[in-house]
Structure formats: C-alpha cells, structure tokens
C-alpha cells in the first residue's frame, strides 16, 4: 500500500519570498503528524500546497500514488481527497451553520434531505445542535470553529488538514473531534496533519512531529524524539522550557558523555561521539531534582498548583527546574540540585 501523502523536495515561492524550502514528508494511513513552528515558518504554506491552493515551485506532492502537484501541473483542490479546517474558519456568511456543514455533502452529490440530516449529526458531535440555524455572524469564535471542524468532517477525505485548529476550542470538544478523527483513521485509514505553534498540543496529539523554521524542516521524529533529543537549542525552546548550560567534557563514548558542570560530574546523552572539549547542554526542568551538589540561588519561583517552577542562578548559567508540590525555596535563597539527565545536541 502506497503512502497517503508524499511531499518530495517541495518548495513554495511567493514572489521573492521562499515560504517553503525543500520540504519532505511521508504520511502513512492512520498517522497523525503535527507541523510545529512559530508563525511565518511555512506551516500554512505546506497546508495550502497539499490542499492544492498554492502552486509549488519545486518538488512534487503525491497523494495515494498519484502526482497532484508539480511545478508545472496541479490537480484542483476539489479533486483531491483532502479536507481542511481553516485558521480563520472561513464560514460562508450567507449560509447557516447547518447549510455550511451540508455544503460538502451536497457537492458529493448527496440528496438535500440526506445532506442536512448528516450535517445535523456532525453538528451534534461538536455540540452545536442548538445553534445549527444561526448564521456565522451570530456565532462566537469558538462556535464558528466547531462549525468549521464539522464542515471538514463532512468531507470524506483521506487526509484531514488542521490549520491552527484548536485556538478557541474547549477540551471536551477537542476530545470529541480527536475521537472522530481517530475513528476515521481506524476505519478508513485516514490521516491527519495539524499545523500548530502550540508545542504541548503537538506533542499530545501527534504520532510524529515535524519542526519548521523559516520554511525549512529542522527536525522530524516522535514526540519523545523532538522533546528529549532536540536537534539544537532553538528546537528545544520551541518544544518546551529548557536551560542551556556550558560544560567541560571529561569522557566521550558513543551516545554518552561524562561532563563537568559546576565541579560536579554529570552524565549526558549525546547525538554525536565526536570528541570536543566543551559542550552545550540542554536540560529540561523535570530533569532537575531538588537536593544535591549543584548550588544555586533561586531568582524566580512560580507556583503552578501541582508543581512549582524555579529559575536558579548557578556558576555555569541559569538552570530551570520543576518540582512537585509547593515552593521549597524563596527568591534569593540558595539550595542544592541534582541534574538527572542532560542532552548534548551535535
């Protein structure tokens, strides 16, 4: 069985601006991929290229074995088995919520009565039954988004694209939509791509995360890959809080380093085994445990409920730590910490 989607060396050019550079992605049936990047990193451009709205300047896009986009030719969007949830919802103002959702069903040549019935089932799934007769202008942002989601679900597609989909969504609806997508993934082998700048969301929903920076793919891997083994400090900060500290290398083995940090020996995982004298260590807050030999002054203490976040000033730089429970230190107090884990990108 061929992959649902293959992007091979795809570039997108808007005048002098190269929005996407040499982008590769393979999407297997049932898979969910998150495109993670700050705004302007090319996420929406990738979405629009896959949907067929943007002409690509290099490479090709293949859907279920068929070339749909090359620099010379493009299969029109309505002929692609792709559904898209628009970032700004793009609901048609002259149609009611129900008619908006029924529209793709009508285009699939279903009779009107059946389309409306199916559309009302879909609106039920997103909790919008009571508001189905309203026009978009009479709906709040979150309600419009739910209608937009239902409209995308109304299209029987191989690939569901979500452009920043959950900005206004409460967790219950998010789950309901996720369940619906999961069901279609299981039953129909559909796949989904989420474009988001929210790392927590990307890590939570995706089988695979693709990190984009200025139109280029920086790293791709499982959520654990990109979180625990980020390719560089920028990617590490994009996926969550992290401290970067310089350490002296004592001993290098394949995949492992013994380093000296504040006169304390720390074992770090490493991407390369090329011996160097000093190394930049990336340390996630939950890799740091209270108590131990690394001394530092607390410069920020933020109580978060289940845990407390600390910023600690050490000789080698600022360390971030997260520990369960209420604050153990006040700002200005000195304490000891242990670094249980560290990551040295190549």
């Amino acid at each position, binding site marked *: 069985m061929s992959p649902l989607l293959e992007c091979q060396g795809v570039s997108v050019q808007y005048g002098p601006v190269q929005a996407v550079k040499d982008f590769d992605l393979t999407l297997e049936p049932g898979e969910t991929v998150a495109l993670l990047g700050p705004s302007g990193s090319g996420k929406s451009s990738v979405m*629009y290229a896959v*949907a*067929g*709205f943007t002409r690509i300047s290099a490479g090709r896009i293949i859907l279920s074995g068929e070339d749909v986009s090359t620099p010379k030719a493009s299969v*029109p*969007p*309505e002929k692609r088995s*792709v*559904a*898209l949830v*628009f970032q*700004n919802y*793009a*609901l*048609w*103002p*002259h149609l009611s919520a129900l008619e908006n959702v029924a*529209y*793709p069903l009508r*285009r*699939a040549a279903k009779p009107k009565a059946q389309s409306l019935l199916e559309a009302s089932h879909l609106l039920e799934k997103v909790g919008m039954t009571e508001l189905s007769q309203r026009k978009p202008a009479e709906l709040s942002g979150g309600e419009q988004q739910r209608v937009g989601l239902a*409209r*995308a679900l*109304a*299209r029987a597609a191989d690939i569901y694209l979500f452009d920043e989909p959950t900005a206004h969504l409460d967790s219950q609806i998010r789950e309901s939509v996720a369940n619906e997508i999961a069901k279609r993934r299981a039953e129909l082998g559909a796949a989904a791509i989420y474009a988001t700048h929210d790392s927590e969301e990307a890590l939570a929903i995706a089988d695979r995360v693709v990190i984009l920076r200025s139109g280029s793919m920086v790293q791709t891997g499982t959520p654990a890959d990109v979180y625990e083994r980020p390719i560089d400090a920028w990617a590490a900060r994009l996926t969550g809080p992290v401290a970067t500290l310089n350490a002296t290398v004592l001993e290098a083995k394949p995949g492992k380093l013994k380093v000296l940090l504040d006169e304390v020996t720390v074992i770090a995982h490493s991407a390369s085994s090329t011996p160097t004298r000093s190394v930049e260590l990336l340390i996630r807050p939950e890799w740091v445990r209270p108590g131990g030999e690394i001394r530092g002054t607390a410069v920020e203490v933020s109580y978060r409920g289940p845990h407390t976040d600390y910023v600690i000033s050490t000789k080698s730089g600022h360390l971030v730590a997260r520990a369960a429970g209420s604050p153990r230190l006040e700002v200005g107090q000195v304490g000891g910490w242990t670094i249980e884990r560290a990551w040295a990108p190549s």
Partner: protein
Amino acid sequence: MVAASIALLVLWPLLELVSVASEALDGPGNGSLVDPMANTALVGAGTAVLATILGVIAALITERSAVSGRQWLRLGILLPMLVPPFVSALSWLRAYGPGGLVDDFSGFELPGLFGPVGIVLVVAIGATPLAYLITVASLRTRAERDLELAARASGARPLTSLRTITIPLLAPALLGIAALTFVVGINAFGVPAFLGTPASFDTVTTRIYQDLTLSSRPESFGSAILLATGLVGVALVLVTLAEMALGRIDAVPRRAVPSGHSGTRSARARLLTILVWFAILLTTVFPMIALTLVALTRGVGLAPAPANWTLSNFSEALDGRFLGALGRSALLAVMAATTAVLLGVMVSALRNKLGRVAGVTALVSFALPGSTLAVAVLLAYGAGLRDTLLLILIAYVAKLWAVGHRSISGSADNLPPDLFHAARMSGAGVRTAVRTIVLPLLSPALLAGWVLVFLFAFHELTMSSLLYGPGTDTLAVAILNLQQLGDVQVSSALAVILTLPLILMAIPVLVLGRLPGRLMGTG
C-alpha cells in the same frame, strides 16, 4: 480585453480632446470665456461651502445625537440622490419661482432663484448626500465614538468635545469633501441650464452646451473644447487632492459601530430631528409636490385644487413623441448598467496592477465633467456614430462604469479568499464555487451597482444634451427642450414621470440594500 475597453472608453477620447484643444489655443480670440469661468468658480465654491456644512451637520445629528427614527432620517437626507439635479431645479421653480405654488398663495417668490444664489442652493442640496455619506464614513473610521467619550470623561462639554476632538479629527476628510463637492459644483449643467441661462448667468458647462448646439460659428467649437479641457484639468486636480485627503475612507472600521447612543432622548435631540425633517421637506419634498401639482393642473395660473386636476398633461407626456424618448432613456440606462456591472466584475477579478490602474481610471472618469467627456467622445467617435444611441451609450459607460466598479470592488476586496478556498476544499469546482459562494455573497453589491448606474444613466442630462441627434433624444433632453420652449405643464409631467416611479422603487432598495454605502465603498 479590459485594458482595451478602458483605452477605448476613456483614454482615446481624452487624448483627442487635448490634441484638438492645443490647436484651438492658437485660434481667434477667446476673451469672452472669462465670465463663464469666474461664474463656474463661484458656483463651485458656494456648493463646496454649503454642501460641506449641511452634510457635516446632518451626519453629526444622525450619528452623534439620540434622534428617534434614525434610519428614516438617514433615508430622508439621502433623498436628493434620487432626484436628478435638473428636476430639482425645475421643482424649485414650480415651488418657489415666479408663478410657483408659494407665489400663487402668498405672493412670495424666492429672490435670486435665477442666478448664482439659486444655482448654489439647488446644486448644494443635491451634493449634500455625498458630503453626508463621506462624513458618516469618516466619523466611523477616524473619529470613533470612544474618543469623544474620553473627552467627555475628561470634563469636556458636548460642544467642546466636538470642537476640540471630532472636528480636528475630521479636518482632512472635510477638505476632501469640500474638494469633491467643489467638483460637483463646477461640473453641474442641468441646474445652471434651468436657473442660470434665463438670467444670462453662464457657466463653463452651459457655455459648452450653447456653443455646441445653438451656435453655428466654427470658432465657438474651439472655445467649447478649450473650456472642456480646462474643466477636466481642475476636476482631476481636485479629485486627486480629495483622494489623498480622504485616504482609505472605505476601510472597514475595526470595531462594530454602536448604533445606539448613551444619552437619553433629550428635548434638544427632538428639536434637531424636527429641524432636519423640516429642511428635507422644504428643499426636496415640497418642491416635488409642487412639481406634481403643476403637472396635474389643467392650465397655467389655475389653483392646484382637485377641481382643476387633469391627467391630460400626463397623456400628452406619454404620447408618441415623448414615449420614444422614455423608451430610449430606459434602454440606454439598462444597457449602461449591464455593461458597467460586467466591466466592474472583470476589473475586480483582476487583482493585479492592471486591476488597480483600471480602478483609478474608473475613478477619474467618474470625476470627469460630463460636458468634457461628451465633447471628447464626440471628437473621438462623432465621425462614425453621430446621431446614434451607441454614441450616447459609450459616453454613459465611460462616465458610469466607475460606479459599477466601486460598488463591486468594495465588496470583492472584503471577500476573504478562504471562503472560496473552503468551497473548493468541500468538493466544489471553480464554477460551482463561484455560483454557490461568490455570486450569492456579491449579489447585493452587483444589484446595488446595477441600480445606481441605471439611476444615473436614466437621469442623465449633461452628456445626452450634447450628444443627441434627430431621433435619439432622451427623456431628460426632451424636458430641457420643452422647458426652454416654455411648456410648464408637460415638462413638469415628464419630470414627474422621470423621477417619481424610481423614487418609489428605490426606497425599498435603499432600506434593504444599504445602497448609498456601496456607492462610497463603505457598505
């Protein structure tokens, strides 16, 4: 295709005009042209001052005070848009002129109605809706209500906040309004033709008309062209200035405008409302009633009482002679409206440089004085098309496609492309997406554009009076000629036929379709 239509409609005639005008400069004496030019400047300045003041006051009353029946008041203020200026002039004559309705009852006639005072009054009242619409739009985009409330919260009285906050914020818009209404004043033809010519008060436009139609002196054609060229130069400079001053007035306000007013409905607001209604009654409604009564009355000098009423003026107005003119006016208006809307759609579809250039050209052609455009079209196409309806149609489309373009492009620009994309994403092909999404969303704008062009073309006098020939006169031209022959009754009946049915039809459209907003691109 679009570029070619623009070139053929606007650019070529203007080039012809300029080249002939430069030859005319070397011709024999043009000394007698100073008076019409001074008179035109006077009318322009008077119109600008009066229309700007009236428009701003009306806008402040409807937008900033707690008046009741705000929607109806707005409609009333816009009513003069539905009356062609020359019919206004005619109706003022029937109401306030010598032998008019008021004269019959009380022996009072408005002094100075024939001459600059009357011309400025009637032209300014016709231009007030324009000033009003731009002021309303500017109040929404430049002087948001919050800014005034902040002044009030800082201790300013209402009039102080108006003087220190609102008016300064509106200052550039006011300059733009003054420039545009000045152009309306200098381009006016119908009103000076009815109210100026009998008093030997010539403006540039009436002079062009006389030179072209009443004179056989060959050199007068040259002076008409010189005048036309001068007029277009002034109009273009002023419209460009106005565009710069107004900037992006058609930008959609970022926040919804609160329609209500925080204050209570005070006695003062009630008084203001009554005053505005009274002004509308006096300037527009009563003259139209007088016009209708004269049209209904059997003979000159008889009291307009039911005993003296007759429909014979109307039946004479609808006999073969004038029925043909009515049919031609309607046909020209339908064709001009349809062509202008089609052109507008095509230009709006071109979201590129050419589209922008076309948009600017359209604006220029709307600012063009009708007299100039008619002379230019005559020079460019007169040889082959003289005395045909097509000649008039070309002039109409050249002049009015800007209206179609403006009303459509405003809506098209506000249509997010993602709405189209979402339809494609739902399985609709290009044609289905246009049919099911784009057209329904644009249809109010298309309809509004069509109706507006139809209205302007149906009421048009300036260009058709210069371009008509045997068998191609329009209803407006027929009224002008009848009035000049002194036929009070039938000309009144024709003017009623030209105006009243459309007013009755347009009011529901105005109420439902936010038509005037679309004219200014603010809808």
